């Protein structure tokens, strides 16, 4: 299978990328890892006239962090880099675990986190952990920029709010509060790329004085047209002591927040099971 012809650009700044996107509008595609783009081009699902590679902009291949600020991930950062980054492994272990689930060893060496989000697959593994971490994306175009919550980025299966003239330049993940931990639980198909059937992430903050749940966020992938937050389930956990009954109730409510398009019975039921597991695992980590 051959990649159809295109004109190739390798700009050395984000400004140049934006100018090219402005000039070619919908006829251009941005290249980071290529693991989604070139597959779609080979299958002739998309046929861009122009491909704009980001590889000439070294600063985009950066994970930035310090103890006070957000974790910032650039659009050339691969899944493998996230899996192996010592700070991410320590402070965002469940994000790193989710990235280890993505694709295969080869795909993780090529594919990028930002590319994965832009592809907007309902089963994107990184989405559930990123949603519970209240991640934001910084989008830039020729005449300005905007920063939006990840939740607002997805609008349908394989569809995002990203304008053809815009580019995602940064993933911003706020530093979790003290006494906070998260977990990502998943089930996947037994196929070569093991696409995720249900993915559930939970992030909890528990007050050590009275062991009540101060904050709770739950993110789900593969069970709706887009990755979602299970907000009704979150409300059940907030302000309560996390006893078995409450956890069960929250998992049940999370199940009812899903809208699986295929295998609905299985996916709904497994959402309940995995949400419960994610909550329990996050609680264990806080202890």
């Amino acid at each position: 299978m051959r990649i159809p012809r295109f004109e190739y650009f390798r700009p050395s700044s984000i400004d140049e990328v934006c100018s090219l996107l402005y000039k070619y509008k919908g006829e251009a595609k941005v290249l980071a890892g290529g693991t989604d783009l070139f597959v779609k081009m080979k299958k002739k699902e998309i046929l861009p006239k122009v491909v704009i590679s980001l590889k000439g902009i070294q600063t985009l291949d950066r994970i930035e962090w310090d103890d006070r600020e957000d974790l910032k991930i650039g659009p050339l950062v691969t899944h493998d880099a996230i899996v192996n980054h010592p700070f991410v492994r320590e402070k965002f272990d469940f994000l790193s675990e989710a990235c280890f689930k993505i694709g295969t060893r080869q795909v993780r060496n090529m594919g990028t986190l930002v590319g994965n989000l832009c592809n907007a697959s309902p089963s994107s593994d990184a989405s559930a952990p990123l949603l519970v971490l209240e991640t934001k994306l910084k989008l830039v175009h020729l005449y300005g920029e905007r920063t939006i919550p990840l939740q607002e980025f997805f609008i349908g299966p394989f569809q995002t709010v990203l304008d053809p003239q815009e580019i995602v330049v940064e993933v911003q993940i706020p530093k979790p509060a003290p006494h906070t931990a998260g977990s990502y639980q998943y089930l996947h198909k037994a196929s070569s790329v093991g696409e995720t059937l249900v993915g559930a992430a939970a992030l909890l903050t528990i007050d050590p004085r009275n062991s009540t749940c101060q904050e709770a966020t739950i993110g789900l992938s593969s069970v709706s047209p887009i990755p979602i937050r299970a907000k009704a389930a979150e409300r059940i956990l907030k302000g309560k002591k996390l006893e078995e009954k409450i956890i069960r109730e929250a998992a049940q409510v999370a199940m009812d927040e899903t809208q699986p398009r295929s295998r609905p019975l299985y996916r709904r039921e497994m959402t309940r099971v995995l949400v419960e597991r994610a909550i329990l695992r996050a609680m264990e980590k806080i202890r």
Partner: protein
Amino acid sequence: MKKQLIELRVNGESFELAVEPQKTLLEVVREDLGLTGAKEACGTGECGACTVLIDGKPILSCLTLAIEAQGKKITTIEGLAKNGDLHPLQKAFIRYGAIQCGYCTSGMILNAKSILDENPKPSRDEILKGLEGNLCRCTGYNKILEAVMAASTGED
């Protein structure tokens, strides 16, 4: 589209070539350099038959542009033997009958090499997880697993 002049470093040797931008690294190593060890099977990044190493890491050459592999150290299966002496993994694959049709072998061995380079004593599960992106339709994987385990214990 206009061809561009590029320089690739493959198995320690430099090659200057004129390629169109849409040419994959797989097409270039096979068709321009005559290194036919890397194979095309699925062409969409699922099977791992096209695996080569870039700066020591396994990647899918069927989804990599040749022009973007410039300035990097590319290793194909042809680069593993030293002075006619096969790499320990290659020897182990032969000894354990881990090769049948051979189509997956080059990708399998290169990926296994990168696994052992990163972690010389991987567990059985680590090898299985590491090789999940390389499909083999002949061996049933057991012999491949045995061969990689044998190579990791230094059996020669």
